[in-house]
């Protein structure tokens, strides 16, 4: 008999015990799916193709599938823990209850930076898309992309400021359109309807593995981009009506959707675009699905994938603002950051100060750094977060075994997913080291400095016992 049943009628949907400030509970499983897939689907529209550049087309496919295994482990582990931690902040709140405050502070920053950098990358892509459309419709000079980048970030921040239901309903619609656009492109170009234009054998000839097997390892770096952000579903924990059921369902449905979309995307793009062009996301193919449509000879496909790319970037940036602001808000509420950020809007019930504060941060990166550097910054923050997850689930099961807290979802074969995830994270660290080692060390250096700052300065402002807000029994071993 379990001591605590978080999935019971009385406890399902409850806020964190002792929390004075709560967000509005209005979301269902479809919104959770839209939040996860909405953030990530842009990874099929841009960015994943850097994996082709790092190792060739086959290497990108292998990276796609191994990254898929990595994220399946992430989704399984996350679903179990989140189904018992119904509070804003996602993995930050998990770390706070399971490992400790400093880990939680770091995880909170991973989330904020992974999402804010992803948002910046989305805005850069949207700006690029506007410039391409302008040149296709007869604009003679190069279009200044900066006003569009600023407008995208400001508009979506305003939408998030106004309310979560409208924001994620907007995401649901545009994500569905972007996903359907990939399916239509696949059906139209592979010969399922009409004549196909795929030339995999001819395009791969002589370039099967241009860097050899080390290129396959290196490709894992950007292989993460196919799925990065699916873990963001947990940020909605305090705003879903039924966290114990909706979060596992939405997250696992999301990763299945993305596995399909990623494989279709690789197949279509690598069968039409030469690998050197496809693999250079700065000087070559910034938006590979859109470029594939351009070579299809169909004007309708060009428009469809143009809108698909735009919608995917908007949906992703929208979800990123939602997630980054929830993590920042949750840290402010706990005084890990200045308490001023822990405020909820009196009318819209959104974390409005966190939303507004992160706008200029996103703009600094969107306007001042190249796309691959912004993506690498986002991937590194995500990777540090994934490395935390195996430690998190192992300690969760040890401190609160299955018989002490009933979960909404129990992931199978523990600890195999945790060990698999840890191994794949180690491989990905090496992949990032190949070519982007300086950024890796700079990033870890940053987290070491802020960790010391938190432990020796910031933590004095934090209430000790009040941080533990879940209605759980005392952990074993303490």
């Amino acid at each position, binding site marked *: 008999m379990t001591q605590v049943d978080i999935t019971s009628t009385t406890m399902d949907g409850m806020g964190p015990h002792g929390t004075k400030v709560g967000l509005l509970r209005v979301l269902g499983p479809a919104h959770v799916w839209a939040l996860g897939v909405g953030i990530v689907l842009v990874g099929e529209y841009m960015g994943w193709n850097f994996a082709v*550049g790092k190792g060739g087309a086959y290497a990108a496919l292998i990276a796609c599938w191994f990254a898929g295994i990595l994220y399946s482990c992430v989704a399984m582990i996350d679903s179990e823990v989140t189904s018992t931690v119904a509070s804003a902040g996602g993995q930050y709140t998990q770390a706070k209850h399971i*490992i*400790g*405050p*400093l*880990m939680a502070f770091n995880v909170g920053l991973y989330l904020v930076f992974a999402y804010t950098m992803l948002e910046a990358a989305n805005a850069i892509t949207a700006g690029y898309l506007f410039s391409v459309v302008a040149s296709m419709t007869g604009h003679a000079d190069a279009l200044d992309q900066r006003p569009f980048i600023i407008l995208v970030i400001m508009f979506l921040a305003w939408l998030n400021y106004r309310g979560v239901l409208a924001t994620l309903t907007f995401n649901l619609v545009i994500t569905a359109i972007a996903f359907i656009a990939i399916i239509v492109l696949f059906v139209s170009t592979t010969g399922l309807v009409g004549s196909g234009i795929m030339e995999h054998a*001819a*395009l791969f*000839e*002589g*370039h099967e593995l241009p*860097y050899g097997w*080390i290129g396959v390892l*290196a490709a894992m770096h950007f292989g993460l981009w196919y799925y990065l952000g699916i873990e963001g579903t947990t940020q909605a924990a305090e705003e879903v009506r039924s966290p114990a059921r909706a979060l596992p369902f939405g997250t696992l449905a999301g990763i299945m959707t993305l596995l399909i979309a990623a494989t279709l995307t690789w197949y279509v793009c690598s069968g039409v*675009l*030469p690998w050197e*062009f496809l693999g*250079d996301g700065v000087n*070559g193919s910034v938006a590979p699905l859109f470029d594939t449509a351009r*070579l299809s000879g169909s004007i309708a496909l060009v428009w469809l994938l143009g809108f698909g790319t735009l919608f995917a970037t908007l949906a992703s940036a929208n979800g990123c603002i939602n997630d980054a602001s929830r993590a920042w808000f949750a840290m402010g509420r706990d*005084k890990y950051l*200045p*308490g*001023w950020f822990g405020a909820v809007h009196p009318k819209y019930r959104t974390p409005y100060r966190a939303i507004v*504060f992160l706008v200029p941060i996103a703009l*600094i*990166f969107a306007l001042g*750094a190249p796309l*691959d550097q912004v993506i690498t*910054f986002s991937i590194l923050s995500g990777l540090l977060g994934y*490395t935390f997850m195996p*430690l998190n689930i192992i300690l969760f099961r040890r401190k609160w075994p299955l018989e002490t807290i009933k979960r909404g979802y129990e992931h199978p074969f523990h600890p195999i997913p945790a060990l698999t995830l840890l191994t794949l994270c180690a491989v990905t660290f*090496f992949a990032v*080291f*190949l*070519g*982007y*080692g*300086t*950024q890796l*060390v*700079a990033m*870890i*250096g*940053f987290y*070491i*400095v*802020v*960790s010391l700052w938190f432990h020796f300065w*910031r933590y*004095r*402002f*934090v*209430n*000790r*016992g*009040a941080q*533990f807000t879940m209605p759980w029994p*005392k*952990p074993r071993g303490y």
Partner: protein
Amino acid sequence: MAHYQPPKQGKASQLFDVVVLVVLTVGALFVPLWMGMAGAAKSVATPVANPTWEALGQNEAQSAKYEALGYTPETAHDLILARFDYSFSVTALLTMIAVILLYYFLILRFSEVEYREVISEKFGE
């Protein structure tokens, strides 16, 4: 354990904390860029004078795609021939591993100390 009462933080101190975080964040990305240490620069090891599609290693199907994308052998030269350099020193690899392990050791150790305080106060020992 005695209940810990945190000090109240003034507005100026809150603002200072935010500025510190923002400066560190921006620095982490931009300092490597400004110092020219950001990796991933691809380079052309052996340029081809008067390039043709054949000289660039492109077969008929591949060169047709480049032409459809608006490239000529001259404009596609750097795009096609640029490569990453994956050579690395064992010392650099060991340094990276040491930095990552140090980081996780540091946060797990400090977190454990803080966590014991939290549990002790929460569950009233």
